[in-house]
């Protein structure tokens, strides 16, 4: 059940993400929370270029990954559900002040209790959502 290779690449990829968040903080003085960067790029004139540059780096990484390997690209979720999910993710992260990176990574790294509570909350409602969705869809085992 425990896929050791996936755990190892997870640890390695995670280390790169932790390094990247530090580079962003050093370069800009701001927290590398992706939802916050998107909101800032949309809504604030100040330092918009830096935020757009960070997002361009994310998209660029996807472009390179698709060029040199064949990452799993398509999301199996129906498009209508994806649109509802997208609105919930955008709205929820804006109101809650962070996502998996802002609260989960940056907040917990700084021992923020609020971020820990936020992370526990979105994991709990995410798991509940998957449990309910499992009643309606059968997922192929990866």
């Amino acid at each position, binding site marked *: 059940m425990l896929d050791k290779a996936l755990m190892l690449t997870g640890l390695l990829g995670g280390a790169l993400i*932790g390094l990247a968040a530090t580079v962003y903080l050093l370069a800009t003085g701001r927290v590398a929370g992706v939802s916050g960067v998107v909101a800032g790029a949309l809504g604030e004139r100040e330092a918009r270029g830096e935020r757009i540059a960070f997002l361009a780096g994310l998209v*660029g*990484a996807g472009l390179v990954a698709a060029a040199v390997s064949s*990452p799993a690209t398509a999301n199996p979720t129906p498009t209508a559900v994806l649109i509802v999910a997208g609105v919930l993710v955008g709205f929820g992260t804006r109101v809650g*002040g962070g996502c998996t*990176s802002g609260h989960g990574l940056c907040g*917990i790294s700084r021992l923020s209790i609020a971020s820990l509570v936020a992370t526990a909350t979105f994991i709990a409602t995410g798991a509940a959502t998957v449990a309910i969705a499992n009643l309606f869809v059968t997922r192929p085992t990866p």
Partner: protein
Amino acid sequence: MNRRQLGALAAGGLFGVGLVVSGMTDPRNVIGFLDFSGRWNPSLIAVMAGAVAVHASLLALLARTAGGRGARLLPPRSTRIDRPLIVGSALFGVGWGLSGYCPGPAIVSLGFGARTAFAFAAAMIVGIIAGGLVPRRRAGCEAP
């Protein structure tokens, strides 16, 4: 492009590569983590552990360097646990569980050219704008 923007671009690239390497851009790994029905995929824990270990260590190192000058780099952090934090995070979790996408992997997936990611990202932007119209917390872990 100035130095801050170059640094941000490099950080975004590195962040994205980390997401791809860790398997977090594959929504099946994320939904697998949230699925406790007997085929649980714990790899997201390894990703978080690796990321927090490196980031927290580097932050601790920074805070100690240059006579505490490094510590001033850190934006203030909020310790308040309020209604927007809980309600927003709860709604985010529902969207995350429905799609297996959180903002970072969704944006990297735009680079894959995944049509599904474009639909998700467009909807996410609508949600972000709507979220700006109600009482909310500041982004990241900044003070409210």
